[in-house]
């Protein structure tokens, strides 16, 4: 049976520095939750509190309603996969995986079957006799997974396990991790600073900054409806403008930017809290670079949300071409076009913000 994890009002302080500040988080049985945030946001601290290598300053952590603060780390039954894998270099792959089972005093024959099963599940059947330093990064990674899951831990903690792999392997392992979680159903907590990993793997994501959880929700909620500009920025939004709502007709909002005086129409019919936006509210709008349309060679474009810009920088990165555009008023717009396109810097161009692609965030910063 899977385990739920409750973090209740947990604070971790190092001197005057709050690494975690009154954090509450509920993780249901079998969920895959990512702690997403930039380095120094407190995600690893929270992980080490759940793991047991650090003690909470205040607050409690529960596994299935059972308080675990006083349970020593070796009895918490938490599986861990480290960024550097932390395989025991003096043991071969078989002994590495069998280590946890031996500590649980399980009979030799059962250890053998279970280790073999674990090796099978990570597709390393023939490597039992090899030593970790003879394995590739991806293979070490699989051994680390096998070692953590073979003991059927209550909770599996993953600390940026994919960050040492090359891009292609990282994608492969991401899919395997997804399949593995689906098959085993272990409650998993995944620490990462990579939004793509978090969005693709998680059932829910906790976006963290400065020791606080900024938003906790499903990937879709966070992706479509970021709670604040930090979350928006972290999951790929850009082109922020702050201003007020000056008109509202059903689901159409007219927004006036307070810095440059731009007026934009926004369709909020997809928004979760449609009714909470009122006339005169201070809001921030944002749009992802890939959702902006570029128009070139049209003299007198008419319509909504059109910006007259000049190309400042272009940057082709393989699958997309990124542009930085400047308006006359000095507003900088980030745009990504799929594929390769060729607008030299200095080219005059039109940028269109489609009404339904603009996200609205309450408040300004």
């Amino acid at each position, binding site marked *: 049976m899977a385990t739920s994890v409750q973090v209740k009002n947990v604070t971790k302080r190092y001197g005057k520095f709050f690494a975690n500040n009154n954090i509450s988080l509920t993780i249901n049985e079998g969920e895959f939750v990512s702690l997403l945030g930039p380095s120094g946001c407190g995600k690893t601290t929270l992980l080490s509190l759940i793991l047991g290598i650090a003690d909470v300053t205040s607050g409690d952590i529960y596994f299935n309603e059972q308080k675990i603060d006083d349970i020593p780390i*070796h009895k918490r*039954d938490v599986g861990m996969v480290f960024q550097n894998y932390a395989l025991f270099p003096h043991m071969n792959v078989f002994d590495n995986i069998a280590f946890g089972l031996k500590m649980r005093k399980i009979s030799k024959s059962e250890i053998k079957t279970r280790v073999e099963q674990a090796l099978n599940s990570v597709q390393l059947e023939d490597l039992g006799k090899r030593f970790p330093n003879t394995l590739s990064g991806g293979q070490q990674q699989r051994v680390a997974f096998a070692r953590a899951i073979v003991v059927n831990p209550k909770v599996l903690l993953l600390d940026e396990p994919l960050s040492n792999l090359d891009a292609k392997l990282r994608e492969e392992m991401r899919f395997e991790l997804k399949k593995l979680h689906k098959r085993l159903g272990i409650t998993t907590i995944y620490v990462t600073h990579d939004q793509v990993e978090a969005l693709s793997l998680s059932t829910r994501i906790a976006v963290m900054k400065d020791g606080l959880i900024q938003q906790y929700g499903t990937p879709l909620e966070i992706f479509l409806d970021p709670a604040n500009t930090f979350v928006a920025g972290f999951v790929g939004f850009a082109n922020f403008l702050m201003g007020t709502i000056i008109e509202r007709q059903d689901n159409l909002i007219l927004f006036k930017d307070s810095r440059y005086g731009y007026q934009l129409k926004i369709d909020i019919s997809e928004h979760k809290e449609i009714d909470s936006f009122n006339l005169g509210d201070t809001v921030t709008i944002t749009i992802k670079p890939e959702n902006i349309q570029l128009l070139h060679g049209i003299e007198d474009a008419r319509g909504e949300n059109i910006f007259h810009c000049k190309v400042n920088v272009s940057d082709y990165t393989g699958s997309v071409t990124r542009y930085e555009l400047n308006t006359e008023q000095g507003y900088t717009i980030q745009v990504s076009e799929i594929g390769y396109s060729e607008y030299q810097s200095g080219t005059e161009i039109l940028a269109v913000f489609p009404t339904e692609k603009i996200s609205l965030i309450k408040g300004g910063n």
Partner: protein
Amino acid sequence: MEQQIKKGDYLLLLPSAIPITILFILPLLYSLSLIFTTPVYDELGKEIYSDSNYEYHYKGEINRYRQYNPETNEYTGNDLRPYDIKSRSEIYKQVKTWGFQNIKTFFMTKRYRVTILNTFRLVIPASLVQFLLAFSMAYYLRKKIRGKFFLTTMIIFPLTLGSLIIASGMTNLFRTSGWFNLFLLKVGLIENPIVILYTYWGTFIAITIGGTAFLFSGFLAICEQFDPNLEVAALTLGANRFKTFLLIFLPLTMPSLLGIFSLGTVLMLGLYPSAVLVGDPVNTTRVFAVAAFEEFQQAFNYNMAATVSLVLTLSQVVVLIVLGRIRRLFYIGFGGTFK
């Protein structure tokens, strides 16, 4: 990628090869030549000298060396005074024979033979005690803790003193009216002062103070470099602190620890000042260096001094081999992470 060594690359060794030859290999060859030669003595127990034509034999009653022709087996009339010979040793070479006589003498004579036993009786227990002390402190101090810098400095401090100052400090501390005995008397633990100075234990304590500091300075770096994730990994897998230490920390750090330990032990085998100053150098702390120094400076028997040194060197080699064998029982590699 293995790089090919070109012929000319060996020239790069010259800057080290030349000093090693002059400072190490030549003296070694000279001392080997000393070991395998024995001076020939006449019936009065005096050295015989030769100028390649004549031998010079000591003539007791008039304190002269008589000229002697080995071919005709006759003494001639020309006598030399002892200082004539000593001052002109290039011409008057001491008569020597080659062979294993010195080595035989070493093992047949008790006052040489005991140096082996005495040295090992001191060094083996002292090095084990040092290992335990240094390792436990380094293990404890491997993490960032409050006051680490102060504690580390205090533990390594004796290294800066050298054995002479440690010994003189000890003579103040441990003498019958020193702080150590005064304290124990006052507390009531003892009725008569404990005699530590000028015994086996005086030397034992002196080398332990310096040796622990030496080992600790090396051990700390090894323990600090150990990847803490490996310990956490073992803990999460259900191993308690002791098992984590025993199954993960110890086997992975042991090879490096033994490396430092062999160096410390080998250095300790040549101990001299603490054996003489706070030990009992005519008896229990008559170690290799004491005997070698005695032959060299008091008896002027360079051959025997070199022989004692040879046995010392061989003991060091034996210790290195034994510890090297033990080291090979463990996984030899980097106990840190490989990324």
